[in-house]
């Protein structure tokens, strides 16, 4: 009896130190390179001028809400994220499921979907600019049907073109995450369900979706993070002063950086980030509840 107790306490004590060290390694780097910059940029957002560093509280934030360019950027960014993120997630889930069901060539297709991420952004942006531009290939194709030339990058639908480019680029990313998540679901569950005579839809709803929840959470967050990166393509295609429909918040931030106005850049970011944080926190709590039931 005593020996067992001693053994259990030994394990219990051992339990605490080693994982602590493991976590500390990541925490040190995380704090230095992510938390501190987070705090530093917040500090700059409440300062008037990056060189004189006079404190001005919420001044920058309030100025921003009256700035028409900021509002335009915010609106476009919001629209872009609201449209592209759900579409991307659903499409990549379908692609991942489709790929799983395929007997042959699935490896090749997997690779094909990852090609957009392997090509340098500038090359891809160059290709799309020449495809959608005024003298581009799309117009050349449409001219056959007597459709007049449209500069697809400078019209009402430009943002939708960007959504298309974003989806083209990022389905591979989310699909890879889904594939890894799907392979985590034991085959046995499906077999048990088959034995019970469950239909395909039931299997999907109660096994796949539920067990995919943790991965889906990752997918949602990473798609949000990646949606910020579309700025690079837009910038390469249309420069610092793009057409109104393509002006996203990052253009505002980039121009502020070039005019040495880092405080406004930081405050613009924090306005966007605080909305994101609320959103993320809600999903986080929902996901926690669902995945608590998973750990068997």
């Amino acid at each position, binding site marked *: 009896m005593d020996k067992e107790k001693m053994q259990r306490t030994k394990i219990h004590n051992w339990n605490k130190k080693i994982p602590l060290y493991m976590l500390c390694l990541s925490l040190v780097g995380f704090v230095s390179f992510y938390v501190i910059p987070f705090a530093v940029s917040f500090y700059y957002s*409440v300062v*008037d*001028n*990056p*060189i*004189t560093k*006079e*404190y*001005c*509280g*919420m*001044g920058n934030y*309030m100025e921003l809400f009256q*700035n028409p*360019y900021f509002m335009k950027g915010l609106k476009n960014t919001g629209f872009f994220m609201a449209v592209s993120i759900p579409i991307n997630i659903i499409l990549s889930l379908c692609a991942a499921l489709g790929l799983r069901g395929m007997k042959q060539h699935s490896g090749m297709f997997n690779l094909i979907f990852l090609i957009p991420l392997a090509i340098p952004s500038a090359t891809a942006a160059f290709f799309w600019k020449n495809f959608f531009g005024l003298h581009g290939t799309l117009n050349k194709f449409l001219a056959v049907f007597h459709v007049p030339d449209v500069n697809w990058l400078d019209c009402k639908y430009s943002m939708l073109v960007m959504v298309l480019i974003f989806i083209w680029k990022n389905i591979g990313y989310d699909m890879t995450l889904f594939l890894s998540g799907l392979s985590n679901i034991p085959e046995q569950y499906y077999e048990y369900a088959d034995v019970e005579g469950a239909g395909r839809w039931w299997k999907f709803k109660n096994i796949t979706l539920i067990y995919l929840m943790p991965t889906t959470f990752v997918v949602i967050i990473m798609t949000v993070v990646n949606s910020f990166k579309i700025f690079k393509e837009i910038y390469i295609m249309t420069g*610092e*002063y793009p057409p109104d429909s393509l002006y996203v918040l990052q253009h*505002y931030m980039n*121009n*502020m*950086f*070039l*005019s*040495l*106005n*880092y405080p406004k850049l930081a405050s613009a970011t924090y306005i966007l980030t605080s909305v994101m944080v609320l959103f993320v926190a809600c999903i986080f709590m929902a996901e926690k509840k669902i995945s608590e039931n998973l750990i068997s």
Partner: protein
Amino acid sequence: MMKKKKMSLLIFLSVLAFVICGCADHSGKKAKSDSGAEDVSQDKEMQNEGQDGDTPEYTKPEMKGELRISCFIEPEFLEPAAKQFMEQYPDVKIVINGYMEQSNTPREDEYQTSFNTGLMSGDGADIVFNSFLPVTTYGEMGAFEDLSTYISQTPEMNDENYYMNVLKAAQNKDGKIYIIPYQAFIETFGFSTELLKEHEDIENALRGKENICFSEVMDFAKRLVAGKNPGENVFLIGSRSTVQIIQDLINDSRNDFIEQEKKEVHLDTEKYMDLLNSVKNIVDEGWLNMDEFDFYNTEYYIAASPSVAMDAAAAQVNPQSKMSYFMPLADKQGNVAVNANNCIALNSSSEHKELAWEFIKYLLSDEVQSLPSVSGLSVNRRGFEKSVERWYNSHDISGSLEDYRNLLQGWVEQVNTCDMLDGPIKSLLELENEKFFNGQQTAEETAKTLQKQIEQYLNE
């Protein structure tokens, strides 16, 4: 439960206090800056009085420390000057970061990005050689130190040793000087001697002028070529692209189009569209079409042509040159401007401001400006003499050195302002105007786009 409630109440109160503090501060600051503007003009008056009276003596700092210099293209005399300075003061180390030389892929926006990052994080270079940075914006943000006090505290910087008009060319209406030219880069325009022979009235008009604005150049040039066949062997303006011509016309009466300090833009106007169309007409008529012309075998006449000052003065003193009556390019009010591209600035967050000023003084001194690697119209009088002499001796210039030198000196003494329009604005103008001349958009579209973009740049 009570604990949680107390915590959230505490958090709420502190956030509220934070917000109120900030707002009060901000509105207070706005009031201060308004009265601040008045103070500055009063200060300027006092400063002028002070200069006549007693100028505070400049105390030399301890010559110790490290200075960093950042430039897009490194001027040739910088390295030898730095070496000599380091020999004189062994405790001083000078590090030069020439972006073009160091990078594989020198790009202007990359240079500006890394420069800004250094500047805003407090780690920027101490001395900056400006190439294309938006100096007016940087000055407004307080990135560059105001050098007017430094200049007034340096007794050697007087009219005897320097062309003070050039040195202080970048002084804005608040009396602040953010950049100092080390060379007077002046644009001059000259006219075809042959064509002038046929128009004595124009020749007389030119004789009485000291400088000329671009619209006058165009006007005279058009009169000189009146009646001739365009494109055959007669051209209107040489060595100037259509986009540059537009920029020249804008510079003539800059405030009619862009007022950077007031953040106003007036490009979406009849005036600007007329400007664009008038130049387009000239192009269409063939007056500027020099691409396929065989310059070597055929006789040709160019009505008006720009030139670098040294070459222009050489042509001027030569009675047989094809172009004559060269004079500096000014705006409609007769202000001759130097380019902001060859100017030195001091970082306001530098830790060694006095030491940096010592080095700047050294760069502008007789010793450095007389070095053989200095070419051009130096702002230092003795350096000016030496480099003019060097140019005279190395080029076959007919006419005496005396005349050549006096001509150039007369031109340099006319400088009274610096072209401080931000580089990015000029690039925007160039891009859109280029599209107009390529036929990709109409004058109206160009004007509207430019109005929108430059307004955005100024007001974002």
